[in-house]
């Protein structure tokens, strides 16, 4: 059980406090309800570029990092297709420094040319490092474009192309800030050796005076139901052929999400999982194979990907993958196998809660999903999944007309 208290400031900022008396530290986590899905198709990568600019100084504080480091703190941030999250950890005695810094950048940024100019370059290098200068680095880009025709999950958080990042203007930055970075669009979570009354006082003092701004209403085009299989072939300068298959799955808040998560565990949750055992160990068709899903708020993708053993034909490898997922769909799973993946989930959740930072971030994410209390119900939801539900969900997901396949060939 993760305990927390919750209150809302007059300007709309939601505040949650998680008290933990066993730590000398405090975490201040601010999540903004904006991600790459809120970008326009002509200006992708912007939410993430903007995250970088949030460290370039705010209206009253020329630099963000130095005062925090001076207070013995460290910080970072991440952007996904659904959200942007900022977090810092520091000795609890100095927690007011974090309130000062976070509230000032929620109030307004400095909007300097230099910061934009430099961060455009930095993000371009990040783009190159992770998506261009790595073998198979463009897979996620290609697979998204194949699987989504309409929904903004069509592009990656880093952006569709370098040019979108290079072309970002200071006016774009300002518009984005005033549209999305308002108190009503944010959630503040404070965790650590501090009580709710103290947090409330500090929150009123530093965040209370920020004008509420206009509430952003999300209007995202829904992805039409896929009705026929889609495939794409790529030839690239990579050493091994690789197979990528993606199927549409439920959204995060759908009850079916829990069965889907267990399906990925059954298929590739470890050395005794089905795909690894059948395709790497017994048939020796793949040198590695993995199954995972986006975990995205809107309807996401479940993916299976693997590199083929040299000499194996693509069609044989694909047939073997399909044989495994069809077997799961037709024959279902035993109670023992179901218990195994539930046990694994229980243990995963317990290890996640070890760190104060994880607890703070998770509270923020669940609150953004609708209610932080969901976090405390997760285990039970997984426990309630039945073998029949798993089979039913497999039938829905592993339907040929729901599949997107990327054949990635080595031209070496």
């Amino acid at each position: 059980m993760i305990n927390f208290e919750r209150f809302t400031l007059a300007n709309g900022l939601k505040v949650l406090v998680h008290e933990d008396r066993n730590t000398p530290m405090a975490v201040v986590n601010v999540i903004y309800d904006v991600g790459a899905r809120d970008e326009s198709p002509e200006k992708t990568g912007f939410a993430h570029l903007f995250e970088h600019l949030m460290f370039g100084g705010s209206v009253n504080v020329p630099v963000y990092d130095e005062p925090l480091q001076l207070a013995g703190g460290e910080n970072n941030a991440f952007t996904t297709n659904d959200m942007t999250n900022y977090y810092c950890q520091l000795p609890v005695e100095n927690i007011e420094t974090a309130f000062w810094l976070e509230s000032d950048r929620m109030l307004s940024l400095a909007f300097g040319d230099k910061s934009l100019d430099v961060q455009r370059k930095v993000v371009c290098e990040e783009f190159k490092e992770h998506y261009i200068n790595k073998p198979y680095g463009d897979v996620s880009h290609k697979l998204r474009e194949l699987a989504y025709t309409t929904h903004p999950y069509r592009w990656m958080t880093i952006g569709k192309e370098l040019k979108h990042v290079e072309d970002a203007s200071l006016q774009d930055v300002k518009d984005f800030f005033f549209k999305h970075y308002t108190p009503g669009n944010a959630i503040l979570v404070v965790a650590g050796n501090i009580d709710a009354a103290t947090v409330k006082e500090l929150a009123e003092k530093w965040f209370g005076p920020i004008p509420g701004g206009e509430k952003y209403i999300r209007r995202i085009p829904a992805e039409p139901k896929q009705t026929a299989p889609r495939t794409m072939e790529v030839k690239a300068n990579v050493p091994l052929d690789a197979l990528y298959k993606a199927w549409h799955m439920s959204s995060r808040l759908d009850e079916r999400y829990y069965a889907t998560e267990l399906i990925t565990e059954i298929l590739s949750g470890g050395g005794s999982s089905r795909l690894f055992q059948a395709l790497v160990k017994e048939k020796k068709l793949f040198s590695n194979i993995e199954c995972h899903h986006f975990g995205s708020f809107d309807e996401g993708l479940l993916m299976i990907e693997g590199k083929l053993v040299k000499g194996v034909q693509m069609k044989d490898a694909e047939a073997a993958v399909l044989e495994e997922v069809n077997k799961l769909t037709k024959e279902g799973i035993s109670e023992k196998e179901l218990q195994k993946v539930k046990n694994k989930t229980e243990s995963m959740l317990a290890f996640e809660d070890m760190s104060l930072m994880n607890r703070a971030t998770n509270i923020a994410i669940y609150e953004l999903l609708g209610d932080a209390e969901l976090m405390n119900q997760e285990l039970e939801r997984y426990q309630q999944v039945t073998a029949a539900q798993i089979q039913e969900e497999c039938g829905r997901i592993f339907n040929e007309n729901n599949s997107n396949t990327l054949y990635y060939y080595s031209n070496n």
Partner: protein
Amino acid sequence: MLNRTIAPPIKDAVEFTLSLKPYTKYTLDNGVQVYAIDAGGQEVLQLEMIFYAGNSYETANTVAAATNQLLKNGTSTKNAFEINEAFEYYGAYCNRSCSHETASVSLHTLSRHLPSLLPVIKEMITDSVFPENELKIYKQNSKQKLSVNLKKCDFVANRLIDAYLYGEQHPYGKYSVAADYDALTTDQLKQHFNQYYVNGNCVIFVAGKLPEDLFEQLNTQFGSLQLKAHNKREDIANSLAAATEKKYRIQNDLKGVQGAIRMATHFPNRHHPDFTKMMVLNTVLGGYFGSRLMSNIREDKGYTYGIHSFVQNHLQDSALVISTEAGKDVCEAAVIEIYKEMKRLREELIDDEELLLVRNYLIGIILGDLDGPFHIISRWKNIILNGLDGNYFYNSIDTIKNIPAEELKQLANTYFAEDKFYELVVI
């Protein structure tokens, strides 16, 4: 009216008193020592068995790593699938890792499942049989993985810089090529296993919410094995064969858009009095987000997504390494800037403001890093495996709080001399 231009008062982190929670030590019947930290709010624990079975002891390249990996691939009563399932049924994770001196088997589990899992670990470390078929799959998949990694400039650069620093025969400098995997035999693995696991030197670290009968559980499973305690720091005689040529430019990928830059110089290990002092100087240079290298090369010039400097965590010979991936066209400019930052540290005193910031930052990081049983045991493990004691921790804190700027400048002159650096760019 709130004045947002004035920072709230802070307590300087250097005023904090830090303490490292002491461990409880047990000795099993065979002399093997167990270091334990009982803490934490979740019903979980981690157990790590360290064997002196790393690549310093192997008779041929990559034997130590292969032996370590294949500990989970078959005993006389269980095949690989059954071993994996024995852990995964309980939601537990059993990992292996192989380093230069040591190799380990670790377990992460809900504390209540420990009695079901220890017997499986015992079986792995006493009765692994290294089936021919498992080795065959391991060789094939390792070679495939290597072929992908060799396309990455950072992977290639990491291997080469170590080879320049220590020589390709040295355990810290050698690396695997496809032919090494081809040459592996089950006999080599069995021999390594028998000598360094079954009859090996072992030390155990355990942390988390510990069961009351932890010691009895461990002693029952491991206390009567042929394992021995590891009492003193192993001094394996490795002769350093550093390269004479210092500067390298390698074209690994004709279409590469970035270069992996590595600059490195030899550096003493933790027993040298300069080691903890250099932690402070290294932080200033490239050890945190606000470092000189980050401020200049990322935040001012935008040449890279990130640049870091660090001292390698080696028990014996070591090195200080600067590492970054930068745009292909700005690699040479980045190298020049790196030298400029070293020069500044050699010639100018770090001012009080920056030095206080770095002291506070480091103390804050250590404070946060002492939070939770896994972090605490990881500090103790480092201290114990390096043959040090708790004083090392308190001396480090003292150094961070008090080292004067003049001394840091002297250290910069000793260790940041340009001609001592190896310089490598792999595109």
